[in-house]
């Protein structure tokens, strides 16, 4: 559904079909603000992504419009690699017979890597910029624990130097946008500079000579995008082996033009239109009408309630919950590290 369709519906209901009161730009900004509010409040968008360890976000895109997504490792689209259509890039690796490396491609990296690598800062993983909250995390196809600094406390200073194969996902605090694996995992390709964890060297200049198969894990950067005329910027698909896989809830794409496509299901769009209208009708214009604004606000609130009901229905198979407040710190101890041939209950 195009944003322009929704704007037309809004204009009919506020009686501003000729844009004499509200400009399109203003409506789009308001719409975008409302959608972000609804996304945070309802968190109905959820996806799973693979993040390389160390935090190199290889992303492949084939069309110019996908370029905007390269800073968001979660949303690269890979539907050209095979006859199948992929909705998530990690799906490619599940498809047998598909080569994950694209010949003739170049390696793209994230802008934040330039900053962190050139400043010689300790490299952390970044949560995707559309991240709201995490529901599951795994490293190398095995579940991870999530811990905060307060869980490590004053007795856990060794986290700076420890390495191991069964890490936890360490987050500074609940508002932090970054995280790292604790203990850090041994990864091919990292060259430690000073003994501190996570500090890396990077290849200067062109990275075309890097071989994704053997140089995996090397932090590289490029100041200019290099496009392949056939493939666009094409690089390595991140597989879950030796990588992080996280399931998280996210916010939709920002809307900046009436030609943008709304990411929301159409049935949610109605509720957001009500919120936009209620905002418009309390502005200092000739359309000011507090009572109508309240009516639309009530419709919006009813919509939120319907979304809650929808989530309840949809997630009725995911009602599992750990009730013990102390379980989080103990969890890794309880979890048996079983060999891969261990018989599970469904076999």
């Amino acid at each position, binding site marked *: 559904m195009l944003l322009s369709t929704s704007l037309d519906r809004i204009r009919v209901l506020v009686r501003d079909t000729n844009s004499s009161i509200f400009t399109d730009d203003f409506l789009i900004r308001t719409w975008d603000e409302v959608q972000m509010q609804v996304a945070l409040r309802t968190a109905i968008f959820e996806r799973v992504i693979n993040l390389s360890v160390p935090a190199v976000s290889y992303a492949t895109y084939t069309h110019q419009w996908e370029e905007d997504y390269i800073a968001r490792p979660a949303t690269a689209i890979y539907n050209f690699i095979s006859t199948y259509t992929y909705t998530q890039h990690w799906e490619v690796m599940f498809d047998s017979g598909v080569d994950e490396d694209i010949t003739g491609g170049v390696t793209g990296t994230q802008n934040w890597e330039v900053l962190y690598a050139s400043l010689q800062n300790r490299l952390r993983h970044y949560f995707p910029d559309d991240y709201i909250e995490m529901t599951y995390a795994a490293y190398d196809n095995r579940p991870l624990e999530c811990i905060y600094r307060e869980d490590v406390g004053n007795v856990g200073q060794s986290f700076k130097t420890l390495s191991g194969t069964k890490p936890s996902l360490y987050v500074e605090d609940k508002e932090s946008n970054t995280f790292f694996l604790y203990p850090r995992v041994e990864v091919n390709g990292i060259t430690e500079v000073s003994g501190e964890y996570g500090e890396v060297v990077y290849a200067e200049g062109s990275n075309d000579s890097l071989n994704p198969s053997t140089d995996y894990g090397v932090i590289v950067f490029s100041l200019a995008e290099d496009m392949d005329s056939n493939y666009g910027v094409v690089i390595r698909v991140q597989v879950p082996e030796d990588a992080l896989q996280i399931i998280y809830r996210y916010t939709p794409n920002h809307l900046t033009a009436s030609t943008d496509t709304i990411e929301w299901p159409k049935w949610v769009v109605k509720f957001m239109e009500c919120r936009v209208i209620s905002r418009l009708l309390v502005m200092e214009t000739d359309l000011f009408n507090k009572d109508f604004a309240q009516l639309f606000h009530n419709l919006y609130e009813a919509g939120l309630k319907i979304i*809650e009901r929808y989530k309840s229905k949809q997630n009725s198979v*995911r009602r599992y919950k750990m009730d013990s407040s102390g379980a989080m710190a103990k969890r890794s101890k309880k979890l048996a590290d079983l060999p891969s041939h261990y018989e599970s209950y469904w076999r």
Partner: protein
Amino acid sequence: MSYTLEDIKLMVMDIVGEDSAAPTYWDSSNDSELVEWINDAFEQVCLVTGQYVEEFTLPLFANRAWYQIEPGKGGQFLWVKYLRLLPEGYELGGADPNKLAREDYNWMTRTGTPRAFFPLGINSIRLVPYPSTNGQSLEGSCVCLPPSFSLNDTVIDLDKSLIRPVLDYAAGMALISMRRLDKALEFFRSYSIGLGLDTRKTATLTYKSTKLRELGQ
């Protein structure tokens, strides 16, 4: 008795004071807004009641664990009612990644005959374990929203008691567009009561402010 969208439209017009036999404003060249609001009303009713269900068959591919579900008739997918594996014929149970992690440390790499699934986001599911060979399929039913109707379409077979909320919602929107607040309020109140919605209770909805949710919660 089955209704066409045209029947519903005429009923709404009568309710809001328009002459349905010889409309002065919402004539055939100018009724797209009305049709849209009626379609919105059907969406609302189906969303709350889950009355519209579609069945689907989804082929499973070797080594693919994640699948998208799309209703076959153009509607919008809401949630899964059941999933049955073919040709085995048994129903897949619901799961949760955190629950799976506690029962089997290696659940993410298990391949074999699927026994469970968990939903992800709007319309994706993960099969556990996932098949390593082609040949199986999923038969399922899902609660959906119906595709938009055109005027001559026969609308879906709703419970007759739910036609009233459809009319209330569409009439409410029509009256809003006429700036008749009191009457619109009355119809929306009737709509809310008809669907069991009480907007006063929505103040208890929680705001998601915590960025990281602990595993298992």
